[in-house]
């Protein structure tokens, strides 16, 4: 049934000259869920979202959004989707209320409701104290709330949010996500791109993008469970030296440094991973405390993009 999925894409591809920004993407976003796009800069998140709103024409493949073909039937979709661009795209020389009123008129919100709707959005997005402030002078967090207020003003069934929380402090990010959960509870499907792991972890489901391709997807828990690696955390005085020692050694799959700690990915089949890592470090006379820990999305990401990034150097 088409209604089960708000978005379905098959082999969606977009090239810019030589560059393939989106590479044969297969995507299914279930209705009513918050679906995350996690990926580093240039991985094709924005391009995919633009393809899905019909702003870009795919080079190959096809997509259906809310049961309509894009870009062919994109025009009929405009009323049903809300899009929050990565860059702030409301009018900086109009004030907060003028921006929302303009958007309300463009979407044809009935005149009797218009005022109430705009004031409602101002209240919901904590902008009631500054309706006359020019949008250009808002802080990053305020701009982001205004943009979300504008994108949800016409009560779209599907929200496409492109890195909505870059440029926002952690507290504002938490508040923002509270709002997303509320919207989701009201039945809105949300596709949100991010490069923050903690945000991606909050999604019902997510896809990890790298070089325009989905390298892993599913619910966060499923992704951890499906991971072919154990995660060992190493705490040591000299993490750089420890990294040097571990990198590329069989059966170690990857080493990421997080401050004074290292997260070491070890092949799942290894029986006693912390012991093995400890012995390798001992051999290089590096003192360290080694513990087995739970995988995070970061680890999933490292595993998923391992081959594409750096071929593991082989040493005897």
């Amino acid at each position, binding site marked *: 049934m088409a209604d089960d999925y708000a978005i379905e894409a098959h082999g969606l591809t977009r090239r810019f000259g030589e560059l393939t920004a989106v590479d044969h993407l297969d995507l299914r976003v279930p209705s009513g869920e918050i679906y995350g796009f996690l990926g580093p800069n240039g991985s094709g998140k924005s391009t995919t979202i633009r393809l899905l709103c019909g702003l870009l024409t795919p080079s190959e493949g096809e997509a259906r959004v809310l049961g309509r073909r894009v870009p062919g039937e994109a*025009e009929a979709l*405009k009323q049903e989707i809300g899009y929050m661009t990565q860059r702030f795209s409301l009018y900086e020389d109009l004030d907060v209320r003028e921006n929302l009123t303009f958007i309300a008129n463009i979407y044809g919100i009935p005149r009797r409701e218009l005022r109430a709707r705009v004031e409602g959005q101002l209240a919901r997005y904590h902008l009631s104290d500054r309706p006359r402030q020019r949008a250009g002078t808002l802080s990053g967090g305020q701009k982001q709330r205004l943009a979300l207020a*504008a994108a949800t003003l016409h009560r779209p069934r599907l929200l496409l949010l492109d890195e909505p929380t870059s440029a926002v402090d952690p507290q504002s990010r938490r508040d923002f996500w509270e709002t997303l959960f509320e919207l989701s509870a009201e039945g809105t499907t949300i596709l949100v791109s991010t490069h923050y792991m903690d945000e991606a972890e909050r999604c019902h489901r997510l896809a990890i993008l790298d070089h325009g391709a989905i390298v892993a997807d599913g619910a966060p828990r499923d992704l951890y469970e499906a991971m072919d690696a154990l995660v060992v955390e190493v705490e040591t005085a000299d993490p750089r030296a420890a990294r040097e020692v571990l990198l590329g050694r069989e059966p170690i799959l990857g080493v990421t440094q997080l401050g004074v700690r290292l997260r070491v990915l070890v092949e799942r089949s290894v029986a006693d991973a912390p012991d093995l890592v400890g012995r390798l470090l001992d051999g290089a006379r590096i003192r360290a405390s080694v513990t087995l820990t739970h995988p995070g999305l970061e680890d999933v990401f490292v595993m998923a993009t391992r081959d594409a990034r750096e071929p593991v150097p082989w040493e005897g």
Partner: protein
Amino acid sequence: MGGLRRLFAIVGKEVRQLRRDRLTFGMIAGIPVLQILLFGYAINTDVRHLSAAVADQAQTSLSRELIAASQASQVVDIRARVDTARELERMLGRGEIDVGLLIPADFGRRLADPSRAAGQLLVDGTDPTIPASARQLAALELGYDSTPKPARREPVYEIRNYYNPERRSAINIVPGLIGVILTMTMVLFTAVAIVRESERGNLELLINTPVRRIELMIGKILPYVLIGLVQVTLILLLGAWLFDVPIRGPLLHVYGAAGLFIAANLTLGLVISTVAKTQFQAMQMTFFFFLPSILLSGFMFPFDGMPPAARYLAELLPLTHFVRLIRGIMLRAAGLGDMPGEVLALLAFTVLTLAVAVGRFRKTLD
């Protein structure tokens, strides 16, 4: 219904933005005032003390009387006396004099013949004020009472206008100037209109709304129609006040012609806006269009003096048709109905460019 609503939303937004854009707002009044003052200075016909030289080949009492009368008029200051027309031409060419007075040897006989001009004025036409001033000399009468004055059909001097065959004056320039000023401001304002939205990132949001292309285009130009008409009013008032430029035809037709012309320029601006990638490019294209408009339209140089290729090109420019219309209405007391060809040309230009603009504009980022 929903369409009109969106259209007015765009118009309202444009007006608000315009009010807050000091530079553009200043240009609306600044450009007409500045231009009319600049051109007005050059078209001031009441120029005196032009430097002159005389070649008096007749050397009679009559010829001396003419020279004295010319000097007394204060239009010219006679700085030098030479013998031949050739010398006058040389001084004119070197820029030493503005006017050469040539009185031929048979001056007395020519004066008696009412069908011939008696003397010649050699005029430097590169400066448009000079031929106009020299015409005052041509109107001189000789106060020579002893014989009954023959009814002269030709003035005493025959004006030989060098370098600029068409005589012009403020009255001729101001109507055309309306067109020049409108071309400059109207095209420029709309040429940047859509490019600015895409440079500032607003367009990505806008094209993702239900707004239709035609609504966006019309909504963007409507506020400027009003601004253009305000500019026209300003120029007419300044022209009447500073230079006594008459409006001999019906005022409504003046505004009708201006309205048609404004529409043509605004839609052209939209086409530029859909082609240009940056505001700077839009400005370059505007000037690329502005130059031939000024040169070929008949505003600066007489249309009939141009080679056929230039004339065909000129027929494609809205300013050409507007200059004909507005001169006709303001100076010859004609109405729009007297020049249906020009009206149709402007209408066709508007419809065509609007269609091109709407056709070129895509609600995508491809």
